[in-house]
């Protein structure tokens, strides 16, 4: 945790409740679009929704680093992922809690609608692992095997 003199516009918008609503709506709309394909079963659609959601959030929140805005941090965020920049690195903020709870909720729904099928379970839980582990405070700033370090 550090003093945050100036707002980082790269992540400050995530704190707004409107952004939370937008996030949930995006998942819902994406799910409805997938449901509209007649050749996909409901189970397949839920697994697809969960996996696509996890791939996208993993890419955006946990692999992309830096900020397109010029901040007064002298390049500190250059080495930080989007997730690590949220609330200037402070843990257990409500924004972080919300963005942790949503993938778990989607996973539980997907498990339910896939009738607890083993193959679906394997795909869904593996993708969930990729978005939950990097969100843990213990993994803040950690780059396993130096991947994506610089």
């Amino acid at each position, binding site marked *: 945790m550090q003093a*945050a003199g100036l707002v980082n516009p790269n992540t400050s918008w995530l704190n707004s409740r409107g952004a939370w609503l937008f996030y949930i709506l995006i998942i819902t709309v994406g799910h409805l679009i997938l449901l509209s394909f*007649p*050749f*996909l*079963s*409901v189970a397949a659609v839920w697994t697809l929704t969960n996996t696509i959601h996890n791939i996208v959030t993993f890419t955006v929140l946990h692999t992309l680093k830096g900020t397109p805005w*010029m901040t007064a*941090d*002298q*390049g*500190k965020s*250059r*080495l930080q992922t989007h997730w690590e920049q949220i*609330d*200037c690195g*402070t*843990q*257990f*903020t*409500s924004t972080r*809690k919300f963005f*942790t*709870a949503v993938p*778990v909720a989607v*996973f*539980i729904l997907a*498990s*339910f*609608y896939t*009738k*607890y099928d*083993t193959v679906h*379970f394997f795909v869904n*839980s593996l993708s969930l692992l990729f978005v939950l582990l990097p969100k843990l405070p213990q993994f803040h700033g950690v780059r396993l095997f*130096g991947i994506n*370090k*610089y």
Partner: protein
Amino acid sequence: MAGDWYLYEVFQAFLSAPAYHLLLEAFLVLWILRLILTKSYKPHKTRLGAKEKEELIAEWTPEPLVPDTPSDHYTLHPRVVDGKPGKTVTINGKKILNMGTLNFLNMIENKAMEEAAITSLKTYGVGSCGPRGFYGTVDAHLQLEDKLAKFLGVEEAVLYSFGFSTISSAIPAYAKRGDVLFVDAGVSFAIQQGIAASRSHVRYFKHNDVDDLKRLLQLQADTDSKHPKRARVIRKFVIVEGLYLNYGDICPLPELVAIKQEYCVRLFVEESLSFGVLGASGKGVTEHFGISVDEVDLICGSLENALAAIGGFCCGKSYVIDHQRLSGLGYCFSASMPPMIASAAITSLEQLENNPDIFSALVRNSRWLHEKISSIPGVEVGGDPISPVKHISLKDCGENGEQETRMLEEIVQEAENQGVALTVARYLHNEEAHPLRPSIRLAVSSSLTQPDLTLALRVISNACASVHRRDLDAVE
């Protein structure tokens, strides 16, 4: 497929779900619940209770407005200067020869500059008090930027309102966290501030020691070859002064340019003192060594010394300089310089172009004084013979800096009594990166005539002799 789907079946599946699956879900649900129920840290709301406030207030002991200062401290005995500190300066009502201020070309007493400033004042007033990007730019600023760029033969120049903040804004605009700066150990305080603000790694090399710089760059190259991925994202800078304010010597620019090519580093040269001083037409250290300005990545200069205006500038390639118009904090967030200062600086530059003889006069005066003062017994003169800034220090004073400073102060007082204004070089010793030797910072001006120089030499020589004699008497 979708037709087979019934909610009933799903519930049936739930009831017969495998245990590992349900266990994982239960764990996740409990974990999320715990996460939600733990107290949230609210980033922007820290409220103190009345008790906490009182505790904090009770804990606080105010620092004294005036710290305990010994009664003989120089700040308690200020010298009051009336009028312009030009070739002569009026100290405490007495008009004496000025060798204390950095008035190398005596532009301070230039009538044309004064007239240009007054004309500009009548046209623009005192300025908008807005930053350059926010209603602060008038044509005088753009003309001065053009004029500076043309004078130095570069693509673009950018103006700052204060000489000190020029380099201390320019360095952090380029050097960021994780970058490596190779800095001469003798750089002035303004550069040290820029380095601190950049949050980069700093490697100081010995003052004007090219071999030491090479050693550090080689160490960095070795580290880089071990971590090529890291090396790709860090920038390396060499930061030197053209003419060192604290030493009065000139940086070995030809060697530095060769090193820059060999190790692929960026070269920043701070020319606050060398601009308008070194070189046949005052273009600074690049002209002095006959090196193209394009070899240096960024040149920073001050308009406050030779040009007798206020403010500073950075110049170089447009690609490099333009970056500062959005990233140089001093440029973005300080009020622009008053237009009359810009007009005065333009006139000052014109004067330099029209009178190239003043540079040879300055060199002649500097050389003569350097040679003569060096021969005064018990005295050492630091710096280059052609440098108009000379640091006079005492031989045989050992490590006792306080005693040396006291003796230098006595010499300055004695010289003032005899008609020459000098000054002891003052530093914030606790905040300087490296210890600096106590000295008298002598500033030579091109306007000094031979009788002035002879007078200055005689007075300095007498003052040194009498203080030495007094010191010897005190020891006996």
